[in-house]
């Protein structure tokens, strides 16, 4: 029987297009200081640090964990770096949770970040690898054909993506850490925004953000001494699959389905739409909301869009998705997955502020990365498992 693990502190930065007011270590410290204040702990209470970010080329700082060790109080303590592309924020939190589940540490600090303004992610994603075909237009150019394939397979109304973006952007206005906030956002504003990678419009796309997220994970004994109510980890799961193989279903990847199945088994979930009160899922382009809802089993295959169209995923719907405004509103790539996990924890602790889902007991955090091939998920709950 594994030790119990709880989230006792959550912190994130104000996400923005350029955080020129802070250095890279300063950005991380902003998130860590807030997580410590939430948990009521200090540097001496931390046994180990687990850090994650997107590939080093995105900022051009190689092995930044070495350079950041001092700023994260990791001198003389175990420090671990996790690499799983865009899903890294989620898998970093899971690795940290495993150190607690295994009974190795009492309190683990986990941090994820990206300072996109100090690098060029688009360049890093399209750089030529010798003897290989180039990806011509960054992540949008990669994912747009998959979205078109989903539209064809599901027969979803063409404005489904617009409705996702409208809902996420309205939610973002309730989140003080959001990077992108459009106070007067409307359906027409999104529908009229330019196509970048048809069928993806400008306002259906995530931004490039500077930001960080941190959590303090604790054993049961340490959680009892925390300042505020913890979020208990009910289950975690990770899965991956190769980028390319014949017959690979990139719209509804098997790795994601298998990951969700293992997660639900561990957390005792039999009907995710009924058993979960809200979910923070990794939606960098609006259409990934219905796609991932099917992958996660909230809706039968081909019917995820119905939940979006019916308003089920809105803050006042029966299955609120991304109450925080999601990746569409803040995207410090490496941190984006951890923000999903952290927001799920805030919901079940009742600390999500204006975007709180009333009475949330159990919430899902989800991250994906690479070519829809790396998945990391957890379920956190108010009740001790």
């Amino acid at each position: 029987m594994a030790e119990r693990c709880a989230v006792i502190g959550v912190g994130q930065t104000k996400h923005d297009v350029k955080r020129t007011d802070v250095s890279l270590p300063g950005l991380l410290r902003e998130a860590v200081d807030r997580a410590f204040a939430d948990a009521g702990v200090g540097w001496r209470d931390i046994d180990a640090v687990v850090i994650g970010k997107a590939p080093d080329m995105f900022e051009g700082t190689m092995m930044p964990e070495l350079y950041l060790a001092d700023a994260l109080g990791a001198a003389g303590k175990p420090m671990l770096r996790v690499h799983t592309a865009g899903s890294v924020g989620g898998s970093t939190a899971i690795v940290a949770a495993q150190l607690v589940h295994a009974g190795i540490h009492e309190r683990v600090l986990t941090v994820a970040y990206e300072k996109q303004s100090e690098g060029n992610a688009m360049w890093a994603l399209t750089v030529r690898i010798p003897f290989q075909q180039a990806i011509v237009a960054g992540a949008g150019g990669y994912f747009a054909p998959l979205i078109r394939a989903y539209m064809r397979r599901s027969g979803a109304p063409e404005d489904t993506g617009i409705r996702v973006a409208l809902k996420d952007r309205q939610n973002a206005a309730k989140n003080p850490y959001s990077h992108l906030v459009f106070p007067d956002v409307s359906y027409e504003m999104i529908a009229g925004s330019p196509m970048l990678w048809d069928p993806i419009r400008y306002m259906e796309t995530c931004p490039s953000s500077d930001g960080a997220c941190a959590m303090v994970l604790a054993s049961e004994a340490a959680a009892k001494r925390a300042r505020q109510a913890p979020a208990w980890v009910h289950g975690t799961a990770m899965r991956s699959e190769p980028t390319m193989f014949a017959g690979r279903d990139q719209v509804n990847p098997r790795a994601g389905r298998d990951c969700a199945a293992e997660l639900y088994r561990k957390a005792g979930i039999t009907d995710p739409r009924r058993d979960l009160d809200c979910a923070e899922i990794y939606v960098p382009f609006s259409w990934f909301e219905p796609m991932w809802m099917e992958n996660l089993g909230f809706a039968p295959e081909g019917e995820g869009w119905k939940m979006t169209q019916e308003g089920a995923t809105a803050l006042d719907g029966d299955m609120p998705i991304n109450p925080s405004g999601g990746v569409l509103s803040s995207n410090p790539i490496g941190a984006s997955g951890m923000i999903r996990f952290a927001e799920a924890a805030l919901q079940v602790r009742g600390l999500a502020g204006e975007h709180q889902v009333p009475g949330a007991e159990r919430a899902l955090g989800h991250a994906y990365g690479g070519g829809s091939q790396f998945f990391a998920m957890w379920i956190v709950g108010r009740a001790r498992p």
Partner: protein
Amino acid sequence: MSAVTSILTPIRLDYTYTAGRATQRFLLGMAEGRILGQRCPQCTKVYVPPRGACPQCGVPTTDEVEVSGKGTVTTFCIVRIPSDVLSVPPPFTCAHVLLDGADLPFFALIQECEFDAVRMGMRVEAVWAPPAELAPTFESIRYFRPLDEPDAAYETYKEHL
């Protein structure tokens, strides 16, 4: 005096990089105007370009097969922002093209038609560089263009989206 907020620090790294056996066969084919793939001896799927092993079965793909320059657009995207990689001005259309005889679509530029005339199921063919310019690179295929053929039925390519 304005504050220094950023500096540019160009870095240069030189590599000796080898293509590997399977990719080399493919690239040498490109230089001859041929598209060479490899078939998995277990699941019989044909990979173009070949990687030397089947990602599903984990066995070497030893049987070389030449596939057609004709294929079917399975899905696509219209790019309306400039590309760092392609010199084609936007808007342009990139598609997943499933070559006849292959089991994995690959990403290709579609030209010689309006950018918004591309559709799922459209039949296309490779347009090669002039013989003197053929070389062991992907760029030996300049782009794909529409074929004067009826669209492929959705059922024939729906497993390759």
